[in-house]
């Protein structure tokens, strides 16, 4: 046992406030004699007082949520409200549809919550947007849910992007250091209403896989939905025809499918790299570009901070237009027809507004 000499009258107790404090730290690990002038250091042992409250584990068991009894309708869980809305159109009474990311949330960043795991563990069919939109949070949720029916490759797994022609797929050498966050192309494809038909087809296929008895119903609903969507598309294109060729600026590069469908052009973006504030040079270039290209509107999703777009708008004469990118029960937009009605009328109103000063 090594012994140390510590002068008990010393003022600096090695960083402790007092001798008593030092002794408190050393208790149980160091042998101390009453008028100690030296201390031995046999480490180990010391008083064992239990802080481990075992009975709280029992409390934990009691707090278990009761599992719901298996209900008759097929349980569909979609990642976004748009997919959920389309699933409702195809499945109608045969399905009970739930979703994870609310329409007012940014679907790139969703924090895992226990209720998501519960929903997924009880789901019969899972629908995701795909194209790496949810790559940050879906895979770990699926693993955690431990539901064999809905893992990737299982019959209950639907990637709604199957068969969709993706825009902005990076070509050539894929270098992560430049360009897009998403390597399989831009994932915001549901904003082209025509893609709703393919989404619906993918969901219908998934439903037929796990519920063959309802195949006829799903086909009928799919046909009806496609018809309504086609006629609505004609109406929307009519409304947007006067603005064909108009240039806009968008906050984030999430609107290419919408713009392409209705003949608009994206002249620039406020924040091209998500989460990284734009540089001064970039903002200056944008402020010069807007009057030059006769850009009237800066399109922004409601969950972004409008300070920077407002700044650009004031300096350049454009107008900030907040457009929801998704169906969202919270804002009263309950299906995709309402969504595009709202988007088209708001945008048309803004584009036909007063010209630049």
């Amino acid at each position, binding site marked *: 046992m090594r012994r140390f000499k510590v002068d008990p009258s010393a003022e*600096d107790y*090695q*960083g402790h406030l007092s001798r008593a404090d030092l002794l408190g730290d050393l*208790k149980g*690990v160091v042998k101390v004699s009453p008028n100690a002038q030296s201390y031995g250091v046999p480490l180990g042992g010391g008083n*064992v007082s239990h802080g481990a409250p075992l009975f709280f584990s029992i409390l934990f068991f009691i707090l278990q949520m009761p599992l719901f009894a298996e209900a008759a309708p097929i349980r569909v869980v979609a990642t976004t409200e748009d997919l959920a809305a389309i699933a409702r159109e195809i499945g109608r009474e045969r399905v009970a549809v739930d979703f994870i990311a609310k329409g007012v949330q940014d679907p790139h960043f969703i924090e895992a919550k226990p209720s998501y795991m519960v929903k997924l563990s009880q789901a019969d069919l899972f629908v995701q947007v795909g194209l790496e939109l949810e790559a940050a949070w879906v895979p*770990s949720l699926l693993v955690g849910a431990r539901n064999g029916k809905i893992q990737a490759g299982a019959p209950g797994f639907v990637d709604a992007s199957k068969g969709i022609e993706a825009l902005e797929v990076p070509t050539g050498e894929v270098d992560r250091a430049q360009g897009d966050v998403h390597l399989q192309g831009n994932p915001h494809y549901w904003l082209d209403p025509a893609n709703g038909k393919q989404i619906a087809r993918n969901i219908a296929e998934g439903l037929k896989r796990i519920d063959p008895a309802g195949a006829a119903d799903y086909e009928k609903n799919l046909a009806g939905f496609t018809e309504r969507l086609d006629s609505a598309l004609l109406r929307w294109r009519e409304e947007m025809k006067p603005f064909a060729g108009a240039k806009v600026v968008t906050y984030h590069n999430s609107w290419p499918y919408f713009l392409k469908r209705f003949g608009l052009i994206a002249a620039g973006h406020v924040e091209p*790299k*998500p989460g990284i504030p734009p540089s001064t040079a970039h903002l200056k270039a944008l402020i010069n570009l807007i009057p030059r290209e006769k850009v009237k509107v800066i399109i922004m999703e409601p969950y972004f901070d409008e300070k920077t777009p407002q700044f650009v708008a004031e300096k350049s004469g454009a107008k900030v237009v907040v457009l929801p990118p998704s169906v969202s029960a919270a804002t009263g937009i309950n299906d995709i027809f309402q969504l595009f009605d709202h988007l088209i009328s708001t945008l048309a109103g803004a584009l036909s507004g007063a010209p630049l000063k």
Partner: protein
Amino acid sequence: MLTLLLWPFLACLILTGIHTYLGIHVIRRGVIFVDLALAQMAALGSTLAILSGHDLHDPAAYYYSLGMTFIGAAVFSLSRQRRERIPQEAIIGITYVVSAAAALVFLDRAPGGAEHIRSLLVGNILTVTPGEVVKTAFLYAGVGLFHWLFRRPFFIISFMPEQAAAERYRVRSWDFLFYMTFGLVVTSSVAMAGVLLVFSYLIVPAVTSLMVAEGIGARLWIGWGVGLFSSLLGLSGSVLFDTPTGASIVCAFGVLLLILMLGQWILKKTE
């Protein structure tokens, strides 16, 4: 529901185990925010890995993180002074802030890392995989064994540094070893549970045990108890109220500490 929370609960157990012990050292040394700084340096390492063209989940990214953590360990062991003209916390704070800003600057060149940086703060203890838990358990057991074998030097350089120097311990080298093993633990913990939660596991049980007990043995057991209880409380709360799990555990720590402090104050008043 129980099976869903089994692995997060086991993760909490091993976090409690190692971090309570390290926290006792950290508080004695007065370097409370060192784990924030090391975690941020690890994040900077990941960013550099992305810039070099690696994927976030490559082993290479982990080694980049570890490398940056070791640099941090070197900085902190070198900046500990006998007579503190500059408080070591200042160095730690500066390291934290500069690493965070550097990561932003580099990320401007390499998008896709922004989500990772954000998830580092929040962690994903709810979706932790059995593989992760087992791997980390083995790693921490190894670190624990190392610290047990060399408990004498580690204890002395933390609690009685003057003595250690007088006894010709190479304090700086042992300091570096301490921060190195600490950095190893922090990098793995933050990947699993996020910075906020790791900080809580490090500091709150140790603080509570300091308030209540004396001697390292007693403090370890109290700390482990506090860690276990807060984990249970946070996990159950997140299920009951459907809140993000990691954040709920942090809140549970806060609530528990508050109750204990109130309890102590009341006891003092009634003495």
